[in-house]
């Protein structure tokens, strides 16, 4: 287990470096100039030039190495920068650094993502067990229907519908903003639904398979109750595919869903990323991608470790 963690942690900077390089090449190719107000008056060319030079945007090579040095903390170690992991100033939001933007948005996205994933597990596993215990029954059909709706209805439709009903008609929750539990409920549900649907299907198939297996028959033969068979024996094994899905799902939910964040005006990181790309805010793009990829790698690692913990039979490289 320790070996696995150490190996993964050694791989991490290499993977991040490759991601950084590829993202940089793509981001640099985005047309436009992040320092310009697209509809506004154009500043004199001298000033534009000075600004481009200040942010090292006049030369991709300089920008690439300078940013890499600052972001990785190498510049800090060498004494050229006053802080480690400095992701630079945002190019479009001049009053903010990328670190500040991420510090403001990441906790929001993580909180929302985690709650959504927990919600998805609760809904998905329950529905999956119900369906899996009696495949083909009316209950199974009902969970299938819910799962289908969860998967196929886009978030902005569900989100807007929830907003209209609970925000405008019933006035139960505030619309837009962030800061209290009432703000988190609707976006969490909306974000959770597609994940819940997927988890429900995974659990259902797992349950059907496990309930038909030899050890379940043995348990039944020994007179174990249906409840114990399902919850204690079958579910544990049926949960394994769900667990392996949870790694990428959690990362996906926590790195911010653009649509959910936009519909509910959640100040998370997903919208920042899309806007950064649209306005060619290079420092913000690079910052978000670096943090995203680190998070993704860490989540996969955590899931692998959990996997080993839950099922010691599994060997991982």
């Amino acid at each position: 287990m320790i070996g696995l963690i150490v190996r993964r942690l050694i791989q991490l900077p290499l993977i991040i470096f490759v991601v950084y390089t590829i993202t940089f090449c793509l981001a640099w190719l985005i047309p436009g100039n992040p320092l310009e107000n697209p509809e506004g008056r154009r500043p004199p060319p001298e000033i534009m030039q000075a600004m481009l030079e200040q942010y090292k945007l006049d030369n991709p090579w300089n920008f690439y190495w300078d940013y890499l040095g600052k972001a990785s903390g190498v510049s800090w170690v060498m004494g050229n920068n006053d802080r480690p992991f400095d992701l630079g100033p945002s190019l479009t939001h001049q009053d903010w650094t990328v670190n500040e933007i991420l510090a403001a948005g990441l906790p929001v996205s993580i909180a929302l993502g985690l709650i959504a994933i927990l919600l998805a597990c609760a809904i998905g596993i329950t529905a999956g067990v119900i369906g899996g215990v009696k495949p083909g029954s009316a209950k199974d059909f009902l969970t299938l229907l819910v799962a289908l709706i969860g998967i196929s209805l886009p978030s902005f439709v569900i989100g807007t519908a929830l907003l209209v009903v609970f925000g405008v008609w019933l006035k139960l929750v505030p619309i837009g903003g962030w800061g209290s539990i009432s703000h988190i409920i609707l976006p969490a549900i909306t974000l959770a639904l597609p994940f819940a649907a997927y988890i429900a299907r995974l659990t259902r198939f797992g349950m059907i398979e496990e309930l038909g297996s030899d050890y379940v028959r043995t348990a039944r033969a020994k007179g174990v109750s249906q409840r114990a068979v399902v919850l204690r024996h079958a579910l544990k094994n049926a949960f394994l595919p769900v667990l392996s899905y949870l790694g990428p799902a959690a990362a996906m939910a926590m790195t911010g869903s653009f649509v959910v964040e936009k519909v509910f005006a959640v100040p998370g990181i997903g919208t920042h990323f899309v806007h950064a790309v649209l306005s060619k805010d290079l420092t913000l793009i690079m910052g978000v991608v670096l943090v995203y990829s680190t998070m993704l790698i860490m989540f996969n690692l955590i899931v692998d470790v959990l996997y080993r913990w839950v099922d010691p039979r599994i060997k991982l490289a």
Partner: protein
Amino acid sequence: MKLLAPFVLIFVVLLTVVYLDDEPTKADIVFVSATEIFTLDPQRMSWTQDIRMAYAIYEGLVRWNNYDFTIEPAAATWTLSQDKLTYTFKIRPDAKWSNGDPLTAHDFIYAWRRALLPDSAADYTTMFFVIEGAEEFFNWRVQKLKEFTANKDNLTSAQRATAAAKLWRETESRFDEVTGLEAVDEHTLRVKLARPTSYFLDLAAFGIYYPVYRPCVEGWVVDNSVQKKITEQGWINLTPPPFEQRRFVKLNPDTARIEQKHGWTKPAELVSNGPYLLTDWRYKRIFRIERNPYYHSQEMIQNDSVAVTSIEDINTAILAFESGRIDWLTDVGAEYEPDMLAERLAFEKQYADELKAKMDLGMSLDEAIAELPKPEPGQRRNIQSFPTFGTDFYSFNCRAKLADGRDNPFADARIRRAFVLSVDKQSIVENVTRLNEPVTTTLVPIGSIPGYVSPQGLPYDLDRAREEFKNAGWEDRDGDGLVENAQGENFPIIDLLYSSNTVRYKNMSIALRDMWQRALGVRIELRGKDSKFFKDDLIKGNFMIGRGRWYGDYGDPTTFLDLFKTGDGNNDRGYSNKYVDDLLAQAANETDPAKRMNILAECERFLFQEEVPMLVICQLVQSYMYEPGKLTGLSPHPRLVQYLWQMKVNER
């Protein structure tokens, strides 16, 4: 159970975190802005939402109240010399910064120097060139910086740092020498202008001319005894700390440039002198300002706090407004905006007589509307559209050659006139944009500038259009519905460029194509491009007809007419005409305001009756959502300068 443990743990922790991170108390006014505030550094502002905040947290020498500069309290009173070249501003002795330090003339000079440094300044630098010596100083610094960069490889890094510091000292003294700015005493600022500028007060009232507090902007690290000295004597009488002890500016030894870092515009740092203080700003989450206890005219401020919620999705913003938690929605860019406006119109129509009667009694439209019964389904009263200080138009490429080297048919004014004459603008605003914007034939929004009478441009006249086209040598000679010249060649296929980001310009361009094809027998190819590519093409002149829009910055026709100056950085049309340049130069030197306005009106008449470098469609409008009578203090003036401290929510 082993499985569930971590989930339960995470869930509990999360709920605690979310719960502890509570919502601030509701502000007196809550409004939603579609776009996040970009910067609170007044010298770097260029967006409406930023400048609106400049008016709230800073205060300039004078303040524009939609008609003149006299009524509202501002930081100073002024006198103008006989030759109209020297303004002397007397700053109120009770004007203070939000840390209690007095506001002095030096604060303005420092702020304006920042704006004039090519090192880090932004979009509006040229607006300071009306000050004597300002342009010279700017160019001098640009030149010196260039020389430094060219020479830097010959120097060791230590020498470079010394040279950069020396250049910076030179720059500071140069600024004091050449520019016409002088602090006669702590509270008297004398401004010499390069030439008589009748709109200088308007500039001084514009956000970018607002003062900043140097120790805050530069992040001086000082101990308490020095801080006391700053308060007592003013920062001007102290030697500024060395650059290592300034947190927010840096002298870059490689470029010799002063680099402004940010961080000083955050609630904990920002020192400002306006009616409000910044008390909370979390990125895309909450922005909150509260009454500034050091502000000199407390009675002017109608509310104690204003919060901006940022909701980027317009549908959500409208829902938030409908749920009643928001007092003002500043932008209604939804596709169903025309339908909402139609509902408002239906409401006004039903009660037209009552409205008129009430308004005859001296009520404002909002007051009158508020007294009417609630709107029925299919009607609404909480949206209103206002004309703005901006104009929508299509530019003709006026260069002799197109970007690909072909002859440009639109270099001929007769052809441009024919194209303008054949557009039915009323039909566009009624059926295409459906916002019923006021159509116009000239660029300067009508009625927006006191003392300026807009001339008439070209009307919608199909016969005259064909006549002009024929005079230019183009008519349908073979009866195929397309025009040919005398050699029998067809009119070149017209390249019409628009930005495809909003459906507005796509629809408008399609409508124009149909009108021109039908009226003139030309073929038109639409080229929709994403805004960045669009802008590149526009700047390079790679178009024949291109979509455009322009918002004025200050209350003078030149804020629009300068677009036609030869070589102007925003002259996308590549238009150049000696008569226009001469008139603009003449206006610049004219000291009599009435004569000056006449010269500018003649310039605009010539441009839009004879030359038509652009097809003006309409004045732009802006819709606000608010409950009439509940929210008061919004200005309906086309400049749409909204002062937050004028607003008040009246409980009904």
